[in-house]
């Protein structure tokens, strides 16, 4: 029997066309219609989320995380590719029957109260009328908003909006919960409470897809992760793979010669660490532990001075930073080539 996927994404891409004539695809072939900007937000993205899994979508600002989530939730139409929730194409409304979604910085009808808002969303999730009241109250209590249930939303803080957003994403006990920056705007206590709520949901059997910049929370929650950079997959794996992978060494050299720098760059797995160093005299880079001997040999050969060597335990943060540094290097190389 084939494995059941909560989410299946196949070659998903999104290109935005901006400009006066851009909304008319027919005109794009004519000179007037070419007066638009083309922005590739997501390109050939493929991944799966198994049923009951917690999956994190990571990436720097503008990496394409929110665009991906919006495509999955049917807010944006992909330029190409397909996505499925439990084998149902995401652009069908019925595919969202078992899906809860929290957008980034959620905003609601300011004039309504959290209770009225929950009643509205319960009705949209086809919760039977006799259960709406009970279901809404239970969710409001679960996210710790009972004291503010009848206050207009415009009078509530950002953190309270976030809690209400999470509550509405849990309506009708969804099989899949998609959360865009769920910990944004929450204080440490709020973060812990929401993390517990999400773990309870996972224990219930729900699958979770979320994006976050708070990497300790990601490490505490997710089973697998995907790092997006400039709309493309930079790294995909599981936290288990990460902890079993080899350690990295961080070398810092004092004023290395150009020749030494060039030699080091040819090492396998070499990554320059952009630290925004106040003293330009220091040069930091990462290499896999397996390249230690070769690196030391090259430094000795060029009479380089080592400032320090650190052993890095594989962590999501180092992988995240390394991925970003690699992309920065690639883009600067590209820019140089363009120049």
């Amino acid at each position: 029997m084939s494995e059941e996927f909560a989410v299946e994404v196949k070659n998903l891409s999104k290109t935005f066309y901006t400009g006066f004539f851009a909304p008319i695809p027919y005109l794009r072939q004519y000179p007037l219609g070419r007066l638009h900007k083309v922005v590739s937000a997501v390109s050939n993205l493929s991944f799966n989320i198994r049923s009951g899994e917690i999956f994190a979508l990571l990436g720097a600002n503008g990496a394409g995380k929110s665009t991906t989530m919006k495509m999955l939730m049917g807010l944006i139409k992909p330029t190409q590719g397909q996505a499925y929730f439990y084998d149902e194409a995401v652009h069908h409304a019925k595919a969202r029957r078992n899906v809860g979604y929290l957008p980034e910085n959620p905003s609601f009808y300011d004039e309504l109260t959290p209770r009225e808002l929950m009643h509205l969303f319960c009705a949209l999730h086809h919760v039977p009328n006799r259960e709406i009241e009970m279901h809404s109250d239970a969710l409001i209590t679960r996210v710790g908003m009972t004291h503010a249930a009848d206050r207009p939303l415009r009078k509530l803080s950002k953190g309270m909006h976030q809690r209400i957003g999470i509550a509405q994403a849990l309506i009708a006990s969804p099989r899949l919960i998609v959360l865009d920056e769920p910990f944004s705007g929450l204080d440490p206590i709020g973060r812990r409470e929401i993390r517990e709520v999400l773990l309870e949901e996972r224990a219930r059997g729900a699958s979770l897809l979320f994006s976050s910049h708070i990497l300790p929370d990601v490490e505490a929650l997710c089973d697998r992760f995907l790092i997006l950079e400039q709309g493309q997959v930079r790294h995909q794996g599981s936290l288990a793979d990460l902890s079993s992978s080899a350690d990295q060494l961080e070398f810092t050299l004092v004023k290395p010669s150009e020749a030494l720098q060039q030699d080091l760059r040819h090492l396998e797995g070499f990554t320059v660490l952009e630290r925004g160093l106040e003293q330009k005299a220091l040069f930091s880079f990462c290499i896999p532990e397996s390249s230690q001997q070769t690196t030391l040999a090259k430094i000795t050969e060029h009479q380089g001075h080592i400032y320090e060597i650190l052993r890095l335990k594989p962590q999501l943060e180092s992988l995240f930073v390394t991925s970003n540094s690699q992309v920065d290097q690639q883009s600067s190389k590209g820019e140089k080539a363009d120049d």
Partner: protein
Amino acid sequence: MIKSTWAIALATFRSAFRSKLSVVIFFFSLALFVAISLMTASSLNEDERLLKDLGLFLGSSLISFSMLALCAQTLYRDLERKSLFTLATKPISRSVIVWGKYIGLAMSTLLLTGLFGLVWYFLAWRLHIPFEFVMIKAWLLIWFEALIIGSVAMLFGSFSTPLVTSALAFGVMLIGRFADDIIRLQQRAINTEEPSMVLDLAKELLVIMPPLKLYNVSEQVVYRSPIPWAYVSKAGLTSWSYAAICLMMASLLFARRDLT
């Protein structure tokens, strides 16, 4: 689908009713009615005619403009404030959002029309003008007209900004209100055998323009001509049909749109 549409309509009605804009519109309108009452008080034996004529004109204009303003910005504002993201990702089609929001705003406008009617009757009672049932029909027709204008604004608002939407919907409203005059002008051109491209275009446009003249009955009210229920029913049916067509088109366009 009906349950979802009604839920959105109710939320939209509550939001509109509690919004500052509604309060401003209501008090502005109230001030205008007070101004009318002062004018009628200073007129000589013309108070009844003035109250009816001016009251209906102002009521019609204010209710139509309120509906136009509310419908022109509802989708855009929700998208800008991102409140649409949670709504559009529920297991409903986008047409439910368009219809729900429209029905909610139509309910708010009905309430506004009712309040205007009450204020008007209060002024009439103070001027010792006898109660006339025909005025209820006139106010009902004003609401029907607002329904058409609102649906046109929803249609343009499904793909455009509030400013452009308001301008386009206002243009349709003007043409709709003066359709008869345009037809008369065209007829005169035909009689004098002066073919004109502009008039030909106007003729084509008139086919799709809403027949808003149908909803202006101030002449009948002032001269106490009867307005049969058959006429009101026909006008209502026309209004609902036109609004339904506009909303169907709005739903189609809105469903194709990227909500970013």
